[in-house]
């Protein structure tokens, strides 16, 4: 870690809640010495390792790929492992850290993500391949792959789900995370069940409950766009028979070379 050695003091305000002793959550302040490189996660580690070992939070990879460390910092959902501490401080050098909102708190900054995972499972986020698999490989055009890039990058951190006002009001809503995954599978030309998927997400708990509040886009640490995915699913859900017919046509040539990718063109 390269720094010029200069340190500064930051005040970390963390929400604490120990169900064994506390009636309700309360804020606690810790003072840490930080350098220009310190991330919010580093600061939390400093508190845990040298000041209060009972501070509890989830983290794993430390480089924005596992999705464990999503928390609410200064009112916004972010990944704390990739957010510099310095730029999150207010005028009084304080940063306020709370767990992801609208979800039950297990302890301190750890929340119960059961509904998040339940909805993810519900949309069957795996590929349902056609019954006849090609001898060699599935062939997709660059344009078809491009359409999936955005949704594939999701790390399932929960920032979007927890920021969504519709989720906040009603946990039966499927949620932006799962709908983005459903979008990924619906648009995948290898997937053989688009009409079923569209019927499921087009039902009363799915894409038509989104009120385009856009909190999901604001919260996503990977810059993904669940709202646009949901809008696309809305359009497709209204003409799912036609979409399924197109898919069946496409799958007739899914093993054939794609003309646009011929080298040298």
């Amino acid at each position, binding site marked *: 870690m390269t720094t010029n050695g200069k340190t500064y003091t930051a005040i970390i305000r963390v929400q604490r809640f120990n169900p064994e002793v506390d009636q309700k959550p309360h804020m606690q302040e810790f003072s840490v010495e930080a350098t220009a490189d310190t991330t919010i996660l580093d600061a939390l580690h400093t508190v845990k390792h040298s000041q209060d070992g009972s501070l509890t939070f989830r983290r794993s990879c430390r480089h924005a790929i596992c999705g464990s460390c999503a928390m609410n910092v200064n009112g916004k959902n972010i990944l704390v492992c990739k957010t510099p501490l310095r730029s999150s401080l207010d005028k009084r050098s304080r940063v306020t850290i709370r767990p992801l909102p609208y979800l039950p708190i297990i302890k301190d900054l750890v929340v119960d993500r059961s509904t998040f995972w339940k909805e993810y499972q519900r949309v069957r986020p795996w590929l349902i391949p056609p019954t006849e698999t090609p001898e060699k490989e599935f062939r997709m055009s660059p344009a078809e792959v491009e359409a999936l890039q955005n949704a594939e990058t999701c790390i399932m951190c929960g920032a979007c789900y927890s920021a969504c*006002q519709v989720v906040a009001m009603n946990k039966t809503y499927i949620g932006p995370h799962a709908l983005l995954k459903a979008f990924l599978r619906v648009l995948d030309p290898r997937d053989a069940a688009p009409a079923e998927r569209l019927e499921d997400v087009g039902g009363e708990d799915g894409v038509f409950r989104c009120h385009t*509040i856009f909190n999901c886009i604001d919260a996503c640490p990977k810059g993904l766009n669940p709202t646009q995915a949901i809008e696309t699913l809305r359009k497709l859900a209204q003409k799912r028979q036609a979409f399924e017919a197109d898919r069946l046509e496409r799958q007739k040539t899914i093993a054939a070379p794609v003309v646009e990718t011929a080298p040298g063109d």
Partner: protein
Amino acid sequence: MYTSTGFISFFLRRFTGVALVLYLGLHMWVIGSVNAGPEVFDARLAAVQTPIFKFLEILLLAAVVYHAFDGIRLLIVHYFKVTEYRKSLFYAAFAVAAILTIAGGIPILLFMLNG
């Protein structure tokens, strides 16, 4: 509460929507008095032309215009890929609504003050 321009837009849209539904009930009660004869109708219509109701009419205009333009914003978001401009679209809708409320509200205000 997770506050953002999207949330404010959503909340105001809902609030004005509910207010307008309640207004509709009142409006139907007033206009519906024509079924009870011209005297009742005239009396009720006169009652809602008083200054206090004229002021409320300006608020009604604000609610209608905000709800309509936020709704137009939603239609644009639904039919075009404009999520990148979501904040600007919200500010634009709000600004248009504010301008129309002032433009439409001034004549009402003048009438209210001059009788």
